[in-house]
């Protein structure tokens, strides 16, 4: 059985936020909704340095849904609207979700978002906040344009989620079920992401996890996330001008 997982190499991640935007466009996310976020660790402002001058650093952290093996959100859903599929992907059935938001409190990663209003309203509000009087050309919405259901008929992707349901990253279920990779993986310009079958020892992702050291977010919470991070290598004395042996000894 396939078990999907993702690796994000923080050495290669340049914090460009392309993954966040790819996800937004492909999954038809309205303003205010981000299934995938990228921030700079230790800094409120993105791409601003942290650390002690001159040993500065900037480490970026892209955060999609962790698709935990032991998902707390699934445990608390009173109606079974969110569940973990056989292939390890944690999904929301939009027709079952009653919007109680219990799953949102259970998720320690904060990756779930609630539709307080119709997405059309979100777009309207977003455009107004930008200073526009109008929105998109009449009726336009970006995003994969058709619904997607699991084999047993559950609605796990629809371009316009209605008001009152919770949504989150689905590993682009509408794409992976067609044999494609999630949009963020396909489009990362830093080539920092790998997606594949954790149960296949010969898959690229399995090899990388064997060869490289990796970390998981909030590992002590016991959620057993299936998104793994290759931590950035520590560059000694970053920012400080270094001495070399030749200079010390005189050339």
């Amino acid at each position, binding site marked *: 059985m396939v078990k999907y997982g993702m690796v994000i190499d923080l050495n290669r991640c340049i914090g460009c936020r392309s993954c966040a935007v790819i996800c937004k466009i492909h999954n038809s996310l309205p303003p205010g909704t981000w299934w995938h976020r990228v921030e700079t660790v230790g800094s409120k402002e993105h791409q601003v340095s942290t650390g002690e001058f001159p040993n500065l650093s900037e480490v970026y952290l892209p955060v999609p849904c962790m698709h935990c093996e032991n998902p707390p959100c699934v445990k608390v859903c009173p109606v079974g609207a969110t569940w973990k599929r056989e292939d390890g992907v944690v999904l929301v059935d939009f027709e079952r979700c009653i919007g109680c938001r219990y799953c949102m409190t259970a998720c320690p990663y904060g990756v779930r978002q609630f539709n307080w209003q119709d997405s059309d309203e979100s777009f309207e509000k977003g455009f107004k906040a930008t200073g526009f009087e109008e929105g998109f050309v009449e009726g336009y919405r970006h*995003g994969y344009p058709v619904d997607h259901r699991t084999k047993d008929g559950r609605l796990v992707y629809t371009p316009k989620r209605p008001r009152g349901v919770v949504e989150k990253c689905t590993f682009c279920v509408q794409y992976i079920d067609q044999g494609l990779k999630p949009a963020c993986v396909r489009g990362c310009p830093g080539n920092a992401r790998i997606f594949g079958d954790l149960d296949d020892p010969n898959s690229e992702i399995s090899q990388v996890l064997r060869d490289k050291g990796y970390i998981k977010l909030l590992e002590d919470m016991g959620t057993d996330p299936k998104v793994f991070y290759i931590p950035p290598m520590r560059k000694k004395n970053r920012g400080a001008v270094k001495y070399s042996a030749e200079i010390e000894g005189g050339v």
Partner: protein
Amino acid sequence: MELSRRDFLKYSALGGVALAGISSTYFKRVQAEISAKPKNFSIIRSVCSPNCTGACAFDALVYKGRIETLTQSADYPEPEYNPRGCLRGQSMVNLIYGPDRLKKPLIRVGKRGEGKFKAVSWDTALDYMADKLVEIMKKYGPESVAVSVQVPGTGYVHKGALIRLASMFGWSAIHGYTMNGDLPAFWSQTFGVQTEEFESLEWMESKYIAIFGSNVFVTRLPDAKFLSIASERGAKIVVVDPNFSPTAAKADEWIQINPSTDSALALSIVNEIIKQKLYDEEFIKTYTDMPLLVRLDNQKRLRAYEVKELKDTAEKLRQQTPDYRDIFVVYDRNEGFKVVNPETLERDFDPVLEGEFEVELVNGKKVKVKPVFQLLKEEVAEYTPDKTAEIITPPNRDKKEYIDAIKRLAVEMATVRPLHIIYGASNYQWFHGDLKGRALSLIVALTGNIGKSGAGISTYAGQFKIRWPLGAWWSFKGRKNKWVTYLLWMNKEYRESEEFRKYNKETPYPKNDVKAFIFGWNNPFDQHNMANRMIELAESGELELIVAIDFQMTTSCRWADVVLPGVAWYEKYELTATILHPYVQLQQPAIEPLFECMPEIWIFKELAKRLVEKWNDPELKENIAEFYPDPELFKEEEGAKATGTWSLKLAREIAHKASLKAVDLMLKTGGDLVEGITLERLLKEGAVRLNIPTPNKRQIPFWEQINQKKPFPPQSFPVPLPKTARFVKSGRIEFYKDEDIFIDFGETLPVHKDPFVDTEYKLNPDAKKYKYVYITRNALYRVHSTHSNNITMLELQDFKPRVWMNPETAKEKDIREGDLVEVYNDRGRVVGYAVLDVGIHPHVIIFEQGWWSRYLKGTSYNTLTYPWVKAIHLAYFVPGIWEPTTAWNEVACDVRKV
């Protein structure tokens, strides 16, 4: 349909237990709609190509006539290139379908800048425009019509069509490369070319990558991976920059220096390399002007025909060599003074590099001469680590570290091969950017790091490059357009100054000034409104006609008299190339142009038609049908008009055909570089590599010169070789420049010159009170000003423009994080919200260019900049190659809370 929670529960209760599937009207409706229709998607490959140099292929998924998603095509032949694309190209749909999308032709009804227009038909707009143009052409001459065609490299067909139109009447084109300050002037001075660079794939081949002021991980997003891979393969990456950046964050070392002091650092490194004899003697003797002799009496190179004992040999050789060359002299260690043939790099001499010699001239006078290398050695001896540390060390750093760093860097850069220096635009867009470039080039030249895989110096700004001869399309029947230099247009005082009169050799200027301004694919009223002059020209009426061709209502459109709606890269056929990789690609229409927007080739054809009717030129009148590459297409459309069967749709179809014909024409007449590259191949394969004459057709600058000993320079299209070869008359890489103006300004060899001394303080000594340097860097969220109005990009920035500064600066000015501040000088001001970053140099204030004025409370970041003209850039005139180029960062400013 609105569905409340209660309804849902009601229905589900009625529907029974089975909740999965159909239990609500909402979902029932949606599901029915979807399952009734088959999935009719079409996928069209096009190329995202604003002025970012990426030229990334995207697959547009079209559903019900709309682009619903964009996915990186990731189909480049070398797997390491894949995917290409970024957050901006990804969200292009926000612009195509956004609220700023232009719908119909517009004619201004209010005052300029008010943004009041009336929508009119194409005929009305074009007739109006043509009438006004003819009026102006008659009154002031056709050269008074200036056209700005930004980054033609991104679109050879449609942008070429505007140049084609300009050539018909002899309008003055403004070269975007220099208008944008993207031309790094050291290239023509040193190598005799416009600009050269490695394709990003080659970055992986270097073992030492020294990045001087380039923020690659923000400005070259699709190519970031190559730096990562190089690093993984063991390359050392060093970033030299006054400010910490995402690129510095990934580097092995960040060397923070004072703004614009890179020449000093480079020359000091050169000094070490020379002192420690780490230079490649054979290389510099063969490929550079280091062994050529220079007269000490007049600082000019010694010409062979001036030398008594060489006169006859030299005269004979001179007969055989082209006019753009000259015959120089070396001192052979065995045979004394010898003549150098500039047309070959094969040496029949073993020259000395050091020493002083006396030579007798034809007229009997005896003069002392020294090889260039000797002069260089003496000059850089002044750039001791100690003295240089004085210049480059930031105020909050320790000089001793820098003294040691200089010595160490010199050894590293001279011994770790291959070395690639990436010289960034933010760094060379200063008044003395050319000096910096020349100094940096010394490092790669002295160490033999040129013309090899992974070894060289590159600059990556502007998608300017004409990659093969395009004259068949760009010129109408062999006619030529004229040129006008943007900086000279903006800087009237300089045009009328002594210095200009004295030093200008060839640079033209319209006799009656610029009276009409047609711009396509640019936003000059935001991006080039230096010292607010664009707006002043518009407000005063000095500029009698302003026409914008765009697909969105930008700030500049608001200042126009006529706005013509064009299309972006998913609504037309276009031929696209870039500097960053050698692939030729097509843009293709994924959708019908929206509303009444038209492919630009049609717009210019229609304009040409009308102008020719009203303008007295029989050849044009007779041949107007040839504006389209196939006259039959022109006639077909005219025929449809006559029979009343014309429609916009038909015009578009014909324009698409004409575009493809133009592609075909340019490929068929383009010569060796595009031999075998056909329209069919492009349609089938997507990206096809140019036939670069190097191993594996890799884009390696100067490969032929270094490996096949072809003399410098290689040709820079579209200009014939003699025009640029005269910049390096010796046929070699030239570090010594002996034109009068270089001598006058003390720049015969690269030197360090402080910023502002020759500009701000010269213009106004009082400017010393503006203690900060104003850097208008490129932003992650925009490509210049494209995507400024992209709602997703704005969301990522919290809809707020920012001003970055060092916490020390903030403290001094009583500014806290998040405060609204104003950056200002005598010329202008701009507002933004303060961000404190200890990585910013204490004397630097950063504002990210590209924000449309409406997001800046009506202010404009370019009002602070100034159209400086460096006299050396007037020594020759080859548009976009040797021409005054904008120095965006040569600006002193201050900041205060608002």
